[in-house]
């Protein structure tokens, strides 16, 4: 037996109805229920924290009790805080290292690993990738030993090779930045190499053959075939490296603690320090908002410049 539901008088189906209510599509709870987990989680874990951070940045709060509304005072203080300016400057240096040194080096290594006939390619690939999976604590411990001024490996090698080795790697402001940059280089280059390698392996071989027939040399082939073909990968790597470096925390926190004299203090470390060492949560939130705006704005700029997400003809 078949049961057919018949609409009672006054209710018409959307097709063929004439009244204004007749055109309204039939609604139910089901679609809302299906999409609700995403929106619920999005609101709880994205919008609420962002909104609370924004509100907190307009208050003074020690971490307990009721936050006191101070308006834009935290932002005004940030504008005159030498420490925050130093953190911005240091972070800019780390971003430059990531984008202008780490990314090109990763591309160079990927190109080398993509060479035809390279033996034990997987071993090389693993060797370059390993640093990113090593615990940052261990990295700090090992590099702390390497960069020790009195008894470290780096100075011992310099002494053995050049007869001089008094570099204060972690104690001198300039060298401390160099040390952080070297650790970034060591940690991140291999990781980014994997992306470039994947991109290189997808470049059609015919393009290289055509370039060879046209008499292009290695450099010319690289600039006219490899680089354009890698543009989407490069764009992704540049933007993610920029975002990662702009929020750098582990390397300076573990290796130098932001010192000496705040020479390696990053903005995220500044935020952490204000919140969890000084109990200045409102001030920390204001710095976090500034960092968010800068990273978001510059990422959008990169996206536009590099054409990320734009359809290629």
């Amino acid at each position, binding site marked *: 037996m078949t*049961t057919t*539901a*018949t*609409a*009672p008088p006054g209710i018409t189906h959307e097709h063929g109805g004439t009244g204004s209510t007749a055109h309204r599509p*039939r*609604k*139910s*709870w089901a679609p*809302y229920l299906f999409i609700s987990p995403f929106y619920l989680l999005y609101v709880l874990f994205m919008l609420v924290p962002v909104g609370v951070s924004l509100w907190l940045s307009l208050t003074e709060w*020690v*971490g*307990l*009790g009721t936050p006191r509304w101070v308006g834009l005072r*935290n932002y005004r*203080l940030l504008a005159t*805080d*030498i*420490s925050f300016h130093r953190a911005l400057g240091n972070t800019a240096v780390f971003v430059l290292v990531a984008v202008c040194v780490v990314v090109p080096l990763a591309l160079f290594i990927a190109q080398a690993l993509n060479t035809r006939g390279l033996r034990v390619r997987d071993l090389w690939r693993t060797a370059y990738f390993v640093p990113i999976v090593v615990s940052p604590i261990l990295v*700090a411990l090992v590099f*702390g*030993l390497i960069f*020790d*001024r*009195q*008894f*470290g490996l780096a100075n011992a090698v310099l002494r053995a090779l050049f007869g001089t080795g008094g570099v*204060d790697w*972690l*104690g*001198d402001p300039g060298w*401390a930045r160099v040390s952080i940059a070297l650790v970034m280089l060591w940690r991140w280059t291999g990781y980014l190499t994997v992306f470039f390698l994947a991109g290189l392996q997808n470049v059609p071989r015919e393009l290289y053959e055509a370039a060879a027939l046209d008499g292009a040399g290695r450099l010319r082939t690289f600039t006219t075939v490899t680089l354009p073909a890698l543009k989407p990968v490069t764009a992704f790597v540049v933007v993610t490296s920029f975002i990662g470096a702009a929020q750098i925390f582990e390397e300076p*926190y*573990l*290796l*130098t*603690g*932001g*010192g*000496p*004299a*705040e*020479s*390696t203090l990053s903005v995220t470390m500044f935020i952490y*320090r*204000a919140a*969890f*060492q*000084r*109990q*200045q949560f409102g*001030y920390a939130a204001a710095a976090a908002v500034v960092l968010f705006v800068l990273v978001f704005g510059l990422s959008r700029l990169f996206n536009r410049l590099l054409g990320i997400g734009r359809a290629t003809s």
Partner: protein
Amino acid sequence: MYIPPPSPPTRRALLRGALGLGTAAALSACGGGSTTPRTSGDVSLSLWTHDPGYEEFFVKGVPEADRATDFRYHLKVTRSGPPDIVTKLLAQAVAGRGTPDLVGFEIGSFPRMLRGDISERLLHDFTPDIEAVPGLKDDLLPARTAPFSKDGRVYAFDSDTPMVVYFHRHDLFDRYGLTDSMTTWEEFAEAGARVYRDHRASLCVVSTVGSDPGQVVQSFQMLLYQRGGAFFDADGNLLLDSPEAEEVLRFLCDGLRGGFVIDVSDYYGAAMQTALKQGRVIGLPMAIWYKNYGLVPNVPEQKGKWRVRALPRFAAGGGVTAALGGTGFGVVEDKANTRAATEFLFKTWLTHDGQVRRFTETGYLPTRRSVYDDPRLGAYEDEFCGGQRLFGLYRSLLPDVPAFHQSPDQSILYDVLAGNLLRAYRGALSPRQALRQTAADFRDQAGR
């Protein structure tokens, strides 16, 4: 049969639902445990500490506390890093549940509790309890209640009287002709320069570990407080920029140039171990706990070769010791177990026998003056230090232990001071400039 389709959710219905969810969440978050104070019987105390030594001490103290109070104690211990303990405590306090009853604050983390009214709101004020115990107020060393006090109220009891003494290699001092007749730092510096020239060995250490401003500051702090200087007064005002501070910093900088002082990246790690093993460091001023945390783990083979003595004096004045480190145990206020936790602390941590036991089990010195006269401690011989009987020395140093007042802005001072100390050590700034710069940087950052 016709089954009508479910009606669509109206905006009002959605809002009502969201409001209901929010209210439920808020109510469940705000619902704390009962705060009716327990006065006797079984009580389960939640203890947070960073050090397994303290955990062991308190667990062993349960029978003692059971006998001395109307409670039968059970301890639930949580261990965490010193800064994390404060962070988690505040997070739980905001949540309104899950706070511990008894908390151990490492001295460097406690200044966070001094910010705003955190300590007043969260911690039990022991001042009336101290006054209720006959003789206790006068017996407790004020130098060790000062770091955990605010506005005259005591919020935690220290684990130690961490006097700064001079550790030295007895055998090498003899070999290099360094005699006990040297009584001032100036004499040490003169002899130290000769020892460095002849043997490449140093008699004093400064830490230059960039990742730990606290350690960099400690090297300077010990001699500054010995000389009579200080970072903060009892009201938290900065006192750093003083003639004593300049004298001490100049002394260290000159020592570094002459080799009397060596810079080592940190006091506990591989660099220090190498320096100790190679005989590059044959003496250093440090708190007494350094024997257990620095010397014994790094150079166990040098057992019997080390000795302890009072710090040499500065010719211009000051005392013969300072204090460095400590951990204060406090009780969280307005909980059902507040009274039980307070009594537990008083009957384990602060009794005469408890303080003797604390020394024998953890090596931390008593914080009650009278305990230093206990014959059990007087008879104690330190094997690592060649069987030295050290309590006579500790007793003689007691009057010179300076008070160490903390400020909520202490971490700011440490950050800026550490950087400027390193610059002074390298010669990039004069001692005067370094201190002035520190004071200026501090004032710029404090109170933001």
